[in-house]
């Protein structure tokens, strides 16, 4: 996945879409104030500069699907494990709720079902049948909409055609009005997301920790350098 911070408007459509797609419970204001809110993707807000010259920056953060994920080795039951495709999967049925993975995760993108999940009416009528609801005591997190990835693969196979770049879109990518989120196959060097991941504007979150995250954040070095920004630089540098 690639996230273009220069495009993100902070509208949080991705957050809403993610909740709807993945059957994420809403915990209500009291529990949210206690720190029990669950947002597999969140939009972080950063204020930069001194008043009145202030700028607001948004940063959507979801599971970074690290190649060296700190959450994986610590899970005693393999609930957190790597798939053959390189996704960092969370197997809800195996989770016994030690919460060790969430402690080990440097990005705090894992969420625990502190109590039984509830969906305020009429949200309970629109649960997605493709995604299992998680019970109390289980850890959950962004899956890159693995149900959509699997459906896409099955449909392509049924049609007898190879998967094309951009065929599969997680809910957040699909709902992003500014096209700030790009999803695709990083193993394919020509895919849009691969090209963006090599962009000079690109960086990884907390890269220095060595977790090898798979999400690339694209950003001009500074907002003051707006005039020097060339949209085509990203493409030309891939050559």
């Amino acid at each position, binding site marked *: 996945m690639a996230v273009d911070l220069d495009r993100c408007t902070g509208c949080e459509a991705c957050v809403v879409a993610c909740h709807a797609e993945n059957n994420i419970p809403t915990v209500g204001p009291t529990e949210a104030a206690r720190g029990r809110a669950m947002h597999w993707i969140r939009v972080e807000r950063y204020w930069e500069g001194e008043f009145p010259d202030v700028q607001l920056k948004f940063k959507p953060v979801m599971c970074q699907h690290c190649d060296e994920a700190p959450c994986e080795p610590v899970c005693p039951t393999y609930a957190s494990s790597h798939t053959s495709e390189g996704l960092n999967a969370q197997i809800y049925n195996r989770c016994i709720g030690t919460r060790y993975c969430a*402690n080990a995760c440097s*990005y*705090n993108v894992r969420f625990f079902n502190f109590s039984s999940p509830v969906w305020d009416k009429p949200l309970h009528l629109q649960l997605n049948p493709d995604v299992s609801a998680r*019970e109390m005591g289980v850890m959950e997190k962004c899956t890159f909409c693995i149900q959509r990835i699997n459906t896409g693969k099955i449909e392509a196979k049924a049609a007898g055609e190879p998967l094309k770049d951009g065929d599969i879109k997680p809910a957040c990518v699909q709902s992003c009005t500014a096209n700030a989120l790009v999803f695709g196959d990083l193993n394919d060097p020509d895919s849009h997301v691969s090209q963006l991941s090599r962009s000079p504007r690109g960086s990884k979150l*907390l890269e220095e920790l060595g977790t090898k995250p798979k999400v690339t954040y694209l950003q001009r070095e500074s907002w003051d350098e707006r005039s020097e920004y060339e949209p085509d630089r990203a493409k030309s540098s891939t050559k």
Partner: protein
Amino acid sequence: MNPETDNRLADDLLRPVLHTSRGFYIAVALFSSIVLCGAATWGYQIYYGIGVTGYNWPVFWAFHETNFVFWIGISHAGTLISAILRIVNATWRRPVTRCAEVITAFALMIGAMFPLIHLGRPWLAWWLIPYPSERGLWPNYRSPLVWDFFAINTYLTASLLFLILPALPDFALIRDRTTGWRKRVYSILSMGWHGTPKQWHRLESAMHIMALAIIPIAVSVHTIVSFDFSMALVPMWHSTIFGPYFVAGAIFSGIAALIIVMALLRKLLHLEAYLLPLHFQNLGKLMLTMSLLWGYFVFNERLTIWYGNSPHEMTVFWSTQTGKYAPLFWTMVLCNFVIPFPLLTIKRLRSITATVIASCGVVVGMWLERFLIIVPSLSRKAASFSWGSYTPRWPEIVIMVASFAGMALLYLLFSKLMPIISIWELKVGQHPQIKSAAKVQDAEAAGELV
């Protein structure tokens, strides 16, 4: 051997086993009701979820894990101390070893409850057991929690053996001195002990092997408990010093618990003639050594982090030195170092009361130490947007209080099962040859011959 002293020893030390006062029943009722409250609270937490506690995102570990490390730490009292004292053949150990071994066994049982209590789905805890599962489910051996499972089980088995082995002659003594149902129960417990030279010889070799084996086991257990933290990429957890730091802290808190328990036993069971000021002084000196060692580790840990000046670690560092957690941190330093140091260093001050005061401080301080390792790091992880905080709510506090009541209850009930001071070991100590050797040792220990 003098049959008169023999009988006096047996009478004095068997009295608590054979005769029960009204105070005992009141105490048992009190502690049982607290334990029941704790069990009910745990049931409530299982039914409604971890959400009833103060746990939150991102502080996923707090009181339960603090208590886990604390109780496993206390369990190092016993076995380790009694094993070391046996190996170096310190004669003053004789009245102390069993009290210590009992603490180990019970603290370990209570400590091992907390990993179950803290689980989101405790009914699935058996998934940590490597059994041939038709689902191909096997525990993840890379996880420190699985190491914990094996380490604690090994230590529990070893410390129970270490407690029961030297109890056989005493069980046989009770069997020989009682009638009726007691005789039947203790015949089974004493496993056919008749005190033949062969049996004594075997007991001696077995105890020697156990004493040697249990030291590496005890060290590994608390090292593995420290690995729960140091293996994770969390600021101020990911540290190479944690293994020895935790082991030192565990022995430190273990000695403190032992001193408190001994003082209580001395008062309640009228053992003034057996648990002497000398024992408290010697244990006080051991505790002083551990206090210095603990202070040395904390200084090392803090200095290297401060000097390294890595931003993520410095955030946690300052939150404990001057920030939100500073009051707790400096209370810990006060309890673990500032109070015990003068009380245990100055010979004139090192009385029973003083060692007990110092020990109470150390128990509080070491609990705070574990809390300060877990919570500040989790609330200030590298991702600064998601910083958080933690305030306990009543369920984890009730469960914690119940764990202390549980310890008291188990200890009380145990004092009815077995003499809390090993009778046969005291008798051996009364042997003229051993006694004269012991006198020299004790005098040396008291600093009279130096």
